[in-house]
Every structure is written in structure tokens, then in C-alpha cells.
């Protein structure tokens, strides 16, 4: 893992091109205690986060900060896969183990299913993945096909991107597009043009990892524009505040895309706090950190807000004989500041 932020090895998918790392911004400490009050009572929905690479501490911190639901897009493993089985196991974990793990921390877990653009380049394997993908996209809680799109922008990537757009159309699912790190502007335009060519309604397509350079065209063409608040390589949240000030809240959403790189699972609550400090209205904050994601991915018919808006966040259908201990049990929260472990 490239933990040195000046290193440019393209390993974790979101941790690349650290040009900003060189010109590090002025250091500002805002501790949890300082911003907790600013976001008190707010609810957040993170529409892009890779929980398989996060710890239980993250889950607890997210829950504490008001994140009530999230979407985990299917992506790669950080290293090449050796066969179809690892795809099956990974897809199953998104709707199985990880979903359960999340539920233990009171966070509703959804996912999008897809063949990652990097992995589309292994064509023999990609071919097999396309055969099993339909088994997964109809599953409960699958809110879209994603994250798909371009990485290197090779012909193979284009081929599987197109095939998956067709799959999404057939299954009546939204599409979550990953836009490339390199040659982003062209890659974003190309992704959108192809989606339109396949007859997708742009209001069913979420274009991810936008920046100041891409956002206008995305919004103008009627797509959803998602922004990833990710240190050094993607958006910083101060820039995000400016984007929202300029474009307003319509069809804009914020995510963390937290993964195995240096990323922040609290990117959304922190950005909300910053927006509040900068005088952005509570309603605008609610739209870009919660409601817009629900409206976009809710087109799948798979999001029932009562699952996470009710105070208990307990799915009634998962109760067993009305006995909550049988739900699989939520994890007790240990006293983190205590030296003593019981």
C-alpha cells in the first residue's frame, strides 16, 4: 500500500496523482468535538464507500457521526484476480458478510454490482464475469450497476462498459460511472456520450469523481454529478463548498469513496460541518449529503427509507419472534478511551 503521499504508484484505485500533496494546504485541526455540534441531528447517506477495506472503528465512527446508510460499489481487489471464483466470492460478500457487518453497527448497506473497468482488460475472465453478473444484479439491496466506465480507456473497457449499460437498462437499474483519474475530462465526456448513445436516461446515471472541470457539462446534460471528498487526489471539502455555492444543490451529491488508500470515511459529515460553517443552508446540505443520493439510487426501487429513518433502524422483517437478540445482535460499543479492555 502506498502510504507515502508523494509516491505515485497507481495501486488503490482512488489513490493516484498526488499533485496536491506537494502543495499541502494550510494545516487546520478540527477535532470531532468541535464539529459534532454543527451536524447534530443531521442524517447522512454515503453513496460510494468500499467498506470491505475499512475497520470496525470506522463503522462505529460513521454511525456516531450520523451516517445511516451507504452504497458499496463493486470495484477491484487491489491486485489482479486469478479466476471467476474470486469475483463470485467478492460479489457475495457485498450482499452477504459486509451487509451483515454493517447492520451490526446500525448502518443500512446497499451496493452496486459491476465489472470494474481495470478488470475489463482481462477479456477471457471478463467474459465469464458477464455470464454470472445477472445472478447478482437482481438481488435485494442492489441499487445500481457500478462502478463501471473507463480507467485506461482501452477498447476492452469500452466493450464491457457498453455491455453493462445494456444490462442496467434491462434490469431497470441506475448506473454508477467511475470516471478515470488520467485524462479525466475526455474520459468523462466519452462515458456520458456512450450512455446517451445506448438510450439511457441521464437522470438514471450518476457520474462519479467529478471536479471543477467536469461538473458543468455533467449537469448541463442532465446527469447526476457525484463528488468524492478524498485527500490529496480528488476533491478537498473546501473546494466542494465552493462548487455547491456556485451550482446549488440540484443533482449534486457528495461521497467519500473511502477504500484502502488514505481516505476518510467521515468525509461527508466533515463536509457538511464545513458547509454549515460557511453559511450554506441546512436544506442544501441535506440534499447534497443525503437526499439526492436516495433520489438517484432509489430509482432502483430498492431503497426503503423507513429502514434507516426510523429511530431504531431495525428492520422489522429481520426480527425473529420479536426478540431483538436474534437479529444477529448489534455490536456493543466498547469504551474507546479506556486503557482497560474488558
Amino acid at each position, binding site marked *: 500500500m502506498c502510504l507515502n503521499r508523494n509516491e505515485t504508484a497507481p495501486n488503490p484505485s482512488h489513490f493516484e496523482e498526488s499533485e496536491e500533496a506537494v502543495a499541502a494546504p494550510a494545516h487546520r485541526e478540527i477535532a470531532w468535538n468541535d464539529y459534532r455540534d454543527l451536524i447534530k441531528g443531521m442524517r447522512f447517506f454515503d453513496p460510494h464507500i468500499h467498506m470491505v477495506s475499512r475497520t470496525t472503528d470506522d463503522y462505529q465512527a460513521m454511525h456516531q457521526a450520523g451516517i445511516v446508510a451507504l452504497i458499496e460499489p463493486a470495484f477491484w481487489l487491489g491486485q489482479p484476480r486469478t479466476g471467476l471464483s474470486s469475483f463470485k466470492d467478492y460479489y457475495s460478500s457485498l450482499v452477504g458478510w459486509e451487509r451483515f457487518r454493517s447492520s451490526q453497527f446500525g448502518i443500512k448497506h446497499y451496493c452496486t454490482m459491476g465489472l470494474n473497468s481495470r478488470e475489463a482488460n482481462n477479456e477471457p475472465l471478463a467474459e465469464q464475469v458477464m455470464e454470472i453478473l445477472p445472478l447478482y444484479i*437482481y438481488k435485494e439491496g442492489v441499487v445500481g450497476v457500478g462502478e463501471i466506465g473507463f480507467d485506461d480507456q482501452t477498447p476492452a473497457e469500452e466493450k464491457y462498459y457498453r455491455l453493462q449499460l445494456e444490462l442496467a437498462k434491462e434490469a431497470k437499474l441506475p448506473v454508477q460511472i467511475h470516471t478515470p483519474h488520467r485524462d479525466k475530462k475526455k474520459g468523462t465526456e466519452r462515458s456520458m456520450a456512450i450512455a446517451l448513445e445506448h438510450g439511457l436516461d441521464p437522470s438514471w446515471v450518476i457520474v462519479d469523481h467529478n471536479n471543477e472541470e467536469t461538473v458543468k457539462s455533467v449537469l448541463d446534460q442532465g446527469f447526476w454529478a457525484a463528488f468524492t471528498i478524498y485527500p490529496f487526489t480528488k476533491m478537498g471539502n473546501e473546494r466542494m463548498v465552493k462548487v455547491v455555492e456556485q451550482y446549488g444543490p440540484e443533482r449534486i451529491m457528495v461521497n467519500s469513496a473511502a477504500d484502502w488508500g488514505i481516505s476518510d470515511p467521515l468525509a461527508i459529515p466533515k463536509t457538511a460541518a464545513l458547509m454549515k460553517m460557511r453559511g450554506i443552508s441546512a436544506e442544501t446540505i441535506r440534499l447534497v449529503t443525503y437526499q439526492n443520493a436516495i433520489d438517484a439510487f432509489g430509482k432502483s426501487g430498492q431503497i426503503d427509507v423507513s429502514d434507516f429513518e426510523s429511530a431504531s433502524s431495525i428492520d422489522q422483517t429481520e426480527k425473529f*419472534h420479536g426478540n431483538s437478540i436474534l437479529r*444477529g445482535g448489534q455490536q456493543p460499543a466498547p469504551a474507546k478511551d479506556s486503557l482497560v479492555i474488558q
Partner: protein
Amino acid sequence: MLQNNPQPESDLRGESRHKSELLSNVMSDFIKDKLWAIIALNTSPEEADWLQQKGLSDPLELMTAFVAVPRSLPKKVVNVSQDELSALSTEFSGFSILGWSLVRVSRVWLLTQLDPSDRHEYVKNIETLFDTAEMNELVALYSALPLLSYPDQWLFRATDAVRSNMGFVFDAIALHNPYPEKYFGEPAWNQLVLKAIFNDKPIHFIEGLENRANEQLSITISDFAHERWAAGRTVSPQVWRLVGKYMTPALLSDMQHLFGSENTEDQKGAALACAESSLPAANNLLIQYPNLEQSVKSGVLTWADLEH
């Protein structure tokens, strides 16, 4: 597809296997009809039509429908009358759908509609569903195990569910499910009960808990309690219902420990366990606590009082 399916014959209970193979067809017809009647009462005509049509379709479409049920049926717990519940459990001891979601009942019903005549095809289809299942699908699959054809085929899967750390999946095999009692060998059975105890599950919901009590289990429970006590933790008092018949001098000292506990439920558990023992020493210990002895012997105190 299942790559390895180790099924040591010793892990299978021969007598019940034979009996249940004979019974399985008759039984599942009855259960199928009952389940359908309950589904019909809990769905709109359109929803019921959709499901019925899927139940009649070819295996691939039926399996896709199994996955897609939540896209066509509402998310709710089924309403089921006490009469219907009794009918189910009378016909098929231990089988209960109390508290099940409509989706779960419908998925289980769909599985009963799969044509079992070609064993190879049937097993392959069920295994594919297991291999690609998400959590709620796993719950439905494990709930359906007692209703599937070729019950001995699913033994490895069933023990895998006991290994699961997903609480809902473990519950689906361990609680209110008649499959383990019928088909698990002693080591697998003991593993199920111990894991339920370890995870503080309400063990009185395990079908066959009393029938399948055994000496080895009682010894392991004692060891487990010692570890808990050494760590300053507690043990659910109802676990001692599994040791009465297998009381030993070593277990008697555990009983003594419990009688000395500040938790009155520990004392009650010890009294009930001692009363179930045929060891004279157990009775001698019990009579030192006349109040408890009287509650037990008069039937005022039973294990039901410790079932939480």
C-alpha cells in the same frame, strides 16, 4: 457448484434418515399447500399470481424468481393464525414460520416447487442458489432444509451455517429448525449448541435440545462455564438444563458454585439440574436449599422461568 461435500456416514443418524426419506414426499405436499394458503392470505391477487406462475416455470426462471422475490412482493411479516401455526407444527414437528417475512415464506415455497425427480439436476440447482446467495436468501435456504428432497445431501451445508458468523444465518439453522435434530451427528450437534450458548442465543428455541442432550456436551458446558467464570463473565443459567442427566462429581461442584452465586437465577438453574440428576449426592446438595427444593418439587419452578 459444490466442490467438496464431505458426508461421513457416521455423521448421519441412520434411523431417522430412513424414516424421513419415506415421509418426505407426503410431508412436503402438505407443507406446500399450507404455505401456499398462508401466502394467499398475505398477498394481493396479482402478487399471488406472479408467485404461482414462477412456481410453475422452468428451474432457471424459478431460481431467478427466488432471488427477485423482494422486487415483486412487499416487505412485511406474514400474518399467521395460531391454528395455522399449530397445523404446521403438528404435521411437521418443530417447523414454525412465526415471525417470518412474506419474502422468506415465498422463497421457501418456491423451493418446494422445484422438481426433484432428477436428483443430479435438483441438487445442482439448489447448490447454485447457495453459492450465489445473499444473506436473506441464505436464511430462506437454511429454513427450507427440512422441506427439501434428499435431506442427507444438505448435511455439509447445514454444518456450514453453524460455522457462519452472520447471526441471521446461524439462527436460521439453529433455532426453530427441525433439521439439525434429525440429521446432525453428535459432534455437529454439540458444536451447534455450544455456539448458540457462546453467542448468548436463547437455546430453548433449538429444536430437540432436550432429546439430543448428551454426556460429552455436559462436560464441555462445564469447561465453558469455568472459562467464563475465570474471565469474570457469566453464563446463561438455562444452560444447566443440559447437564442434569449427566451429573458427575465435577459437575456437582459447579452446582455448588451456582448455589453460592448472588444471581438467584444461577441458584434456580442449579436446583433444577440437581433435581434432574439420579445421583444421591445431587439430591443431598439440593435439600440444603429447602426453599428451592420445594419450588422445584412442587413444579412452581421450571426451566421455562429461566428462558430468556
